[in-house]
């Protein structure tokens, strides 16, 4: 067996308790080990991605129990890609958290960070539906700690809402899994695919209930309307570097939809044929529309970034809901882009909030205003999908993939008008925050005393160099994704092809029992 597959889970699982138990009182050592751990994770992710590129699906049997009886981890192109994305996202964020001093504002930031990475990587790699639930819980428990990191009344209240909503989601997840298990007698995803196909159509009422319940759970994670209400308040009130890391969490929902509804309840399975696309597509369109309106209406830069996350999920799920190879290839490219772009906006929003507070209204000019406004501009271009960055390529691919769809006109209208509203909203925020402050009539120069008070209130980061470098790292990621759009798209196309031939996956997982 190839032991690299379990490494992205084992490494953070060992590192996080080590940080808690041994390095508890040594912030510097915590930082060193945390960054080294993320770099090692990146190395592992690159290794397994290189292994997955061969197209072979590898299976890791935990405890050496064969597939339908034990839990398996499965490495295919999609899971390798998502693990790589997680590691690529985690590196700049952990550096930013160190540079901005966020990890020093509460306890156990680095340990929770690695528990979160463990949950996310586990969710991407597992081949068992109940194990998926367990990894969801791992990442959620860590996210509860990260979300309330640093404390404060408002953040804790938002944390209560966030935990409540996710506990409800977990309960629903268990109901869905119970229903599916009671019909099929298995929770291994490959085995599930085989059993679902065997069930006669007249006996599938319960199974359809289970499939739809499961879709609801994933839609809660992916913040699809009308299940998105948890997202703006939680992300806007979380420490913003953490919100940037949470950009991958909504993608876990999207990944799960892709995995389960191409494999177990695939598009050609009679039981759930057309079920997912029919429900998901209108919801995704409304998600995009409401997200764009939210960007336009936000009074606070953190909420605006949260609504940006919602719009990107809308675009992504429109592509997924088409359920054909071209659209899924576009969706996978867009996952990569939108995760980085959302994270970039959250990090820039944090820089703005550290210096002047986050209200979208003219205030006195802040330190390093030029550099931060340039970064905001880049993030806005990427998010809105304007050339030359990868958002443009991603949206173009989604539009192109939806050309042949029956309601292509609606999709095109929503995506294009949504992008336009997003541009207007981001431009409004950017000009109010960065430009209006230089207008002496709007903002008369402040008294020196007041300025001192301001700096004390919004202390800039202790290591600005590191913070800026990490944000530029995210920008570099977007630029590379644009420059290498060809190879990236080739990879995602092959991934989509692999997703649409589930037989390879099923025989790789179940084949060993013979």
């Amino acid at each position: 067996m190839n032991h690299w597959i379990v490494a992205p889970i084992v490494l953070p699982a060992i590192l996080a308790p080590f940080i808690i138990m041994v390095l508890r009182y040594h912030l510097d050592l915590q930082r060193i080990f945390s960054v080294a751990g993320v770099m090692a994770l990146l190395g592992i992710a690159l290794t397994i991605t290189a292994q997955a590129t061969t197209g072979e699906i590898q299976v890791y049997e935990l405890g050496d129990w064969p597939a339908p009886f034990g839990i398996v981890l499965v490495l295919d192109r999609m899971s390798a890609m998502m693990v790589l994305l997680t590691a690529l996202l985690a590196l700049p964020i952990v550096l930013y958290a160190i540079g901005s001093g966020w990890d020093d504002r509460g306890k156990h930031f680095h340990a929770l960070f690695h528990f979160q990475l463990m949950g996310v990587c586990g969710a991407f790699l597992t081949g068992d539906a109940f194990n998926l639930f367990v990894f969801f819980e791992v990442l959620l428990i860590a996210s509860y700690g990260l979300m309330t990191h640093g404390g404060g009344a408002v953040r804790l209240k938002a944390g209560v809402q966030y935990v409540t909503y996710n506990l409800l989601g977990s309960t629903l997840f268990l109901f869905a899994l119970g229903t599916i298990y009671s019909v099929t007698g298995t929770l291994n995803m490959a085995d599930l695919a085989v059993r679902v196909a065997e069930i006669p159509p007249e006996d599938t009422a319960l199974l359809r209930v289970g499939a739809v319940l499961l879709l609801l759970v994933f839609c809660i994670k992916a913040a699809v309307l009308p299940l998105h209400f948890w997202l703006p308040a939680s992300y806007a009130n979380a420490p913003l570097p953490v919100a940037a890391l949470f950009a991958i969490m909504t993608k876990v929902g999207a990944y799960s939809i892709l995995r389960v509804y191409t494999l177990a309840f695939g598009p050609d399975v009679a039981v759930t044929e057309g079920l997912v696309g029919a429900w998901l597509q209108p919801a995704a369109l409304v998600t995009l529309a409401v997200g764009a309106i939210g960007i336009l209406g936000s009074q606070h830069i953190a909420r605006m970034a949260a609504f940006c996350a919602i719009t990107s999920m809308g675009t992504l799920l429109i592509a997924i809901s088409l359920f054909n190879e071209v659209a899924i290839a576009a969706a996978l490219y867009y996952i990569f882009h939108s995760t980085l772009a959302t994270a970039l906006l959250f990090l820039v929003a944090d820089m703005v909030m550290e210096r002047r507070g986050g209200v979208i209204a003219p205030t006195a000019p802040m330190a390093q205003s030029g550099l931060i406004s340039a970064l905001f501009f880049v993030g806005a271009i990427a998010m809105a999908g304007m050339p030359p960055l990868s958002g443009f390529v991603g949206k173009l691919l989604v539009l192109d993939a939806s050309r042949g769809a029956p309601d292509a006109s609606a999709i095109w209208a929503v995506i294009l008008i949504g992008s336009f509203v997003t541009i207007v909203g981001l431009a409004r925020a950017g000009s109010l925050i960065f430009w209006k402050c230089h207008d002496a009539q709007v903002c008369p120069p402040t008294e020196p005393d007041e300025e001192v008070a301001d700096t004390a209130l919004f202390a800039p980061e202790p290591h600005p160099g590191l913070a800026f470098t990490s944000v530029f790292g995210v920008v570099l990621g977007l630029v590379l994704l644009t420059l290498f759009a060809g190879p990236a798209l080739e990879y995602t196309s092959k991934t989509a092809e692999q997703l649409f031939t589930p037989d390879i996956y099923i025989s790789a997982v179940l084949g060993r029992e013979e």
Partner: protein
Amino acid sequence: MEALVASAVGVMTAAGIFLILRRRTFPVILGLSLLTYAVNVFLFATGRLALNAPAVLNKYEDVPYTDPLPQALVLTAIVISFGMTAVIVMIALSAYLSSKDDHIDMSASDSVDAPGEDA
């Protein structure tokens, strides 16, 4: 027995949903606990209900057995929901202590004025 278990799940779920729609954190957390009890019983029943049957196969004779997998799932679910309830109690308690207010919803000023900043 089936009717008893089914109605128990139903009543607990209904009571849980009623409670999570309350406005203060304490009833909401009680509602979440009730929902997790309901889902645990539900999971237990997904392996079909069997009385006085062991959870292992008998190698020597063909005797009834009960499905062991849901029991393992329920065990996992109980541990997770117990831990989660403890976490939400602690977060709710510290939110209450720092804001002197145990309403689950946030006032409009909370979310606009200073998200992320200590209020």
